[in-house]
């Protein structure tokens, strides 16, 4: 082919130059059927319909292709598919990973970040703004629409590493630096980067930025109209909160009753401790062994000292007086166990009190002054037989201590309600600046306890030689501005390369998140530079970038192998053809559901469980991502690991994939759907086979294919013909024609 005639856009000139230097020519344009399938799946992650294909094949106007590209870029499903690409970068998941036994792991509002990303792609939010919002939306001027706050899920939705702050910060530095700039800054956590110009000092400059940021207890609402289920949610929430409060009250009441019941024991304990002169740890152990509450014990200690000095009538006998004092005490026949006598008297006074309160709820005290005096010891203000309510549940002396797990469960139910109830208002997992920013210092060899020199919070030296220390709060906004700066040599190139890699199955730089010195250089450096410059000049518009790439002849090449090139360039580094790509897990599942007519195309919302059977027929994007126990099927099909930032997905072919396709209830159910649509159309035959091919392969079957299919149906026993038809549908889903994109 004549090279010059082949060129459609400037992109092609760069590609052609490299091909011609080898004496190679580009591949011819792919068939229209292949082209529309390639671009539809490439932009929306969904297969085109049979009608889409037919219309495009029939459209002979010169702008048929650009119009198709524009239509797809305007589809709401474009943002879903490309949003998912970005979620790989952002190591998105809907929970925190392991944070301890019984602790709620869920991020209740993770979905607001996912939806923010989808919307940003659909609205073609300029990429530099996208950067600012994800790192520092809390510093930006926002109107009543606070949805941009959700952008900060980029930072906050990572793993939690048993809540170790330094590891959480490391993960945030990683997602920011590899994600936006293809720089492996976290290599410099323990020592200067071994290959790239990133000193440890720079790592801790960034560490200081995140150490100066915190997650507020109360996550901000995103605004917007309240959900129709809001009142219902509030009611349910109030109910659960009241149940927690009631449980607390009840637990306190029981705990106090127990302290009153054992009042005599505490008095005895005070006496013995004094005799044994126990203090400090020995005292603690002594109390623990007797299951005595240390705070209540100290209360009694102090009270008895005071009452001894005051010659409290109730306690005269306790302190050895032979007579006098409260007659009820004085006259009681004291056996050996004086403490038990006191306990019995306290108990009796409480009993009398309860009885009289039943009859006269407003009564202020017992009518008998002597009984009243006894009652006041355990039930009066300032009684030693109590423990303050404001102790944390983790304090072994709190009366709630043993009930910690129940309370935790009840609270996590409250969290679950916020996460799952449709009326719970959406919120953003944001970061805010701490009141006083942290002055970072270097952790020598990565150890927090090994203090090195102080460093200012500031950007990376190599990328900003005349940098100044960050001056506004944590410095997050300044960090974001430095990354999004048009002069930043990495940001635009890294993004452009990511987009390119998704379209071609291989980046111009083959390590999309490592542009460091150890990475291989770009195959087409000038093309990368040109695309990046153009991208910035055109306002950081990703949609314009897509157009630039998709309208090229390079993108529209056939995927046929050519032996003259494949021998020396098997990886197609020089782009002498289009690479054949396997459908991603999401595109495969979504296309199956779409062909079977089951796909629910609603956009956005809370995550749903898609791994269960029967599946929720939402797009796979909306499936709950459990980063701790990611369902096997995700991993089997090379879904992005949500453990850490994921530069690109693996593309493996293993029999476990085949097992899922052959045997899973999901495939059975979707294949079975075709029987419903064929119902009442007479005997299953050529007509229905044709329909299957149109739905699944978006084309008519050939005569040979119809023959094979009919033979298959005929090969089944009569009563199993419809089952065989469903099996036939399944075969088409399993076929390479369905699972690969030419």
């Amino acid at each position, binding site marked *: 082919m004549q090279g010059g005639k082949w060129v459609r856009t400037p992109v092609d000139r760069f590609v052609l130059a490299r091909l011609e230097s080898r004496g190679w020519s580009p591949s011819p344009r792919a068939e229209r059927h292949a082209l529309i399938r390639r671009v539809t799946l490439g932009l929306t992650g969904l297969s085109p319909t049979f009608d889409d294909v037919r219309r495009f094949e029939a459209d002979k106007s010169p702008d048929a292709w650009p119009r198709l590209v524009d239509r797809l870029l305007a589809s709401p499903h474009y943002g879903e598919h490309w949003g998912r690409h970005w979620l790989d970068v952002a190591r998105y998941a809907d929970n925190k990973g392991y944070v301890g036994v019984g602790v709620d792991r869920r991020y209740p509002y993770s979905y607001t970040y996912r939806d923010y990303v989808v919307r940003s792609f659909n609205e073609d939010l300029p990429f530099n703004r996208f950067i600012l919002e994800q790192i520092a939306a809390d510093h930006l001027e926002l109107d009543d629409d606070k949805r941009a706050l959700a952008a900060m899920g980029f930072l906050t939705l990572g793993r939690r590493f048993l809540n170790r702050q330094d590891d959480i910060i490391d993960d945030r530095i990683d997602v920011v630096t590899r994600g936006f700039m293809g720089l492996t800054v976290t290599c410099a956590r323990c020592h200067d980067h071994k290959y790239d110009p990133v000193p440890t000092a720079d790592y801790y400059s960034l560490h200081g930025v995140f150490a100066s940021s915190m997650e507020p207890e109360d996550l901000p609402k995103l605004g917007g109209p309240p959900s129709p289920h809001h009142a219902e949610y509030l009611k349910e929430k109030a109910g659960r909160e009241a149940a927690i409060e009631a449980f607390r009250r009840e637990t306190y009441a029981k705990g106090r009753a127990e302290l009153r019941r054992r009042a005599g024991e505490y008095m005895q304990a005070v006496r013995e401790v004094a005799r044994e002169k126990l203090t400090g740890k020995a005292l603690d152990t002594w109390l*623990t062994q007797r299951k005595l509450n240390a705070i209540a014990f100290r209360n009694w200690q102090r009270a008895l000292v005071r009452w001894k000095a005051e010659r409290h009538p109730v306690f005269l006998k306790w302190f050895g007086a032979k007579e006098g004092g409260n007659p009820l005490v004085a006259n009681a026949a004291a056996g050996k166990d004086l403490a038990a006598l006191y306990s019995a008297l306290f108990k009796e006074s409480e009993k009398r009190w309860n009885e009289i309160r039943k009859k006269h709820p407003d009564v202020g005290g017992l009518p008998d002054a002597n009984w009243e005096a006894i009652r006041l010891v355990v039930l009066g203000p300032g009684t030693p037989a109590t423990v303050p309510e404001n102790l944390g549940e983790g304090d072994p002396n709190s009366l709630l201590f043993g009930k910690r797990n129940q309370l935790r469960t009840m609270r996590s139910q409250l969290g679950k309600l916020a996460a799952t109830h449709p009326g719970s208002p959406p919120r953003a997992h944001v970061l805010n600046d701490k009141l006083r920013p942290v002055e970072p210092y270097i952790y020598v060899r990565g150890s927090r306890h090994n203090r090195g020199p102080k460093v200012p919070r500031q950007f990376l030296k190599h990328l900003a030689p005349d940098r100044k220390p960050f001056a506004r709060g944590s410095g997050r906004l300044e960090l974001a501005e430095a990354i999004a700066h048009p002069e930043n040599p990495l940001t635009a190139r890294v993004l452009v390369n990511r987009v390119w890699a998704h379209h071609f199955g291989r980046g111009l730089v083959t390590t999309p998140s490592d542009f460091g010195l150890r990475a291989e250089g770009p195959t087409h450096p000038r093309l990368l530079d040109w695309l990046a410059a153009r991208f910035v000049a055109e306002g950081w518009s990703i949609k314009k970038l897509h157009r630039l790439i998709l309208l090229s002849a390079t993108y529209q090449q056939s995927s046929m*192998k050519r032996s003259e090139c494949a021998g020396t360039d098997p990886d197609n580094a020089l782009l002498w053809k289009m690479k054949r790509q396997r459908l991603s897990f999401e595109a495969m599942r979504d296309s199956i559901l779409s062909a079977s007519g089951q796909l629910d195309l609603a956009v956005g919302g809370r995550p749903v469980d898609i791994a269960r059977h029967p599946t929720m027929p939402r797009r796979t994007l909306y499936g709950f991502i459990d980063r701790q126990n*990611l369902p096997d099927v995700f991993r089997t099909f090379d879904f992005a690991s949500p453990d850490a930032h994921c530069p690109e997905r693996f593309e493996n072919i293993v029999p476990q994939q085949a097992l*899922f396709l*052959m045997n899973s209830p999901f495939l059975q159910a979707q294949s079975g759907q075709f029987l419903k649509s064929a119902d009442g159309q007479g005997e299953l035959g050529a007509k229905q086979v044709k329909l299957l091919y149109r739905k699944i392969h978006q084309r008519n079957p050939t005569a040979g294919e119809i023959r094979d299919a009919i033979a298959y149906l005929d090969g089944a026993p009569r009563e199993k013909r419809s089952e065989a038809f469903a099996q036939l549908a399944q075969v088409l889903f399993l*076929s390479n024609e369905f699972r690969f994109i030419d």
Partner: protein
Amino acid sequence: MGHHPFNPEHLGYTRREFLSRAGMGLGALGLGNLMARGNPLLPKAPHFRPRAKRIIHLFMNGGPSHVDTFDPKPSLQKFAGKMLPMPNLPTERKTGAAFPCPYQFARHGQSGLPVSEIFPHTARHMDDICVLRSMRADVPNHEPSLMLMNCGESILTRPSMGSWLTYGLGTENQNLPGFIAMCPGYPIQESQNWQCSFLPGVYQGTYIDTRKRKVEDLIRHIRNPRMSLEEQRRQLDLLRRINERHAKARQNESQLEASIHSFELAYRMQLEATDAFNINREPEHVRRAYGDGIQARQILIARRLVERGVRFVQVWHGNSQPWDQHDDLETGHRNLARECDQAIGALLSDLKSRGLLEDTLVMWGGEFGRTPTVELPKPGSNAGKVNGRDHNHHGFSMWLAGGGVRGGMAYGATDEFGFRAVENVMHVHDLHATILHLMGFDHEKLTFRHAGRDFRLTDVHGHVVHDIIA
């Protein structure tokens, strides 16, 4: 036999015939080079000639006490109920006086290695066992220690040893997963214990919940509930025909052929995997030798798996952390040992008589050991029975058998009371380095490039302990 849906005899021919029939048509596709691309599980050669080809890791999760199992400390008797003449080392909780082992130890085999009475069956194999008495981990908490033992890193997400080995070696049997983790329930940290982390997803351990009994419940998607194998064969024949036509029009590109082949593999996997997990196929005397209960069942399955070429089988004792006896250690350890000992003994005999022990490494141990001193009561964590032991990472025991390891030896030692490893200390990283060595790898060279650097199981640590290699 009706509940074994994949018994090929039903179809009127033997298993061998069936397998060859199932693979029909592969010849035409050129099995050898077709598998060369796309399938990351193909067998690969290690760096040098390995001593062990596969591993069974018997994971006593929770942390078994070494002074009550394989590391006798008579000196504890002298101090029974008294404080040790050394300060107690810091562990998770406070401990008090010396707590002598409540069991008797006796010497076994020609080597005369001492074993506590709670492991009588294991004891018969001491001449094949190398007891590592000087193990050391980093912290006295379960989560980080589990991660360290499995993945070589306490906090950050790193691939597990099974994933590293499957990545390095592929699997000998394409009809089974290369790395299988069995547990009745889940240990704490759940599937992170067999995670592949940044390695490709295919290297993640395949988890099997051994509380389930029916074979088709053990492995997901291993059978089609609606189709007989014959029907499925017919379906896959059509698929192959369609795929071959498609591939032919595309110069039989390798990834297309790999995909075609994956269905044939999967078809055979259905048979072989079902077969591997079906212990009813074992003769009566073998099943009797392993005994009853979940441990027996899963340890016998482990043998069937390694026999079929599964690379790494991890057998977890139980849900959560059964060996974690802060209280009631005496009865607790006795019961736990009773649950698994007979099967472990049978496993070792069985492997040996089949000639498998030579190149199968059996590994026994927990994430750490326990203190030689009694745990003191603490509200909220220990009710105060004062008859258990706390976690101990300063020193603990594991044992290895087979796979090129010297039997009948004890390596390293803890101090007089079993608190801290003091002689030939073997950190978990050293254990990993040694295991990789036995499997034919230089642990410093089995690496994967991730986030800008080459990661390895032992990070920047680990020394191969040659003294324990036969």
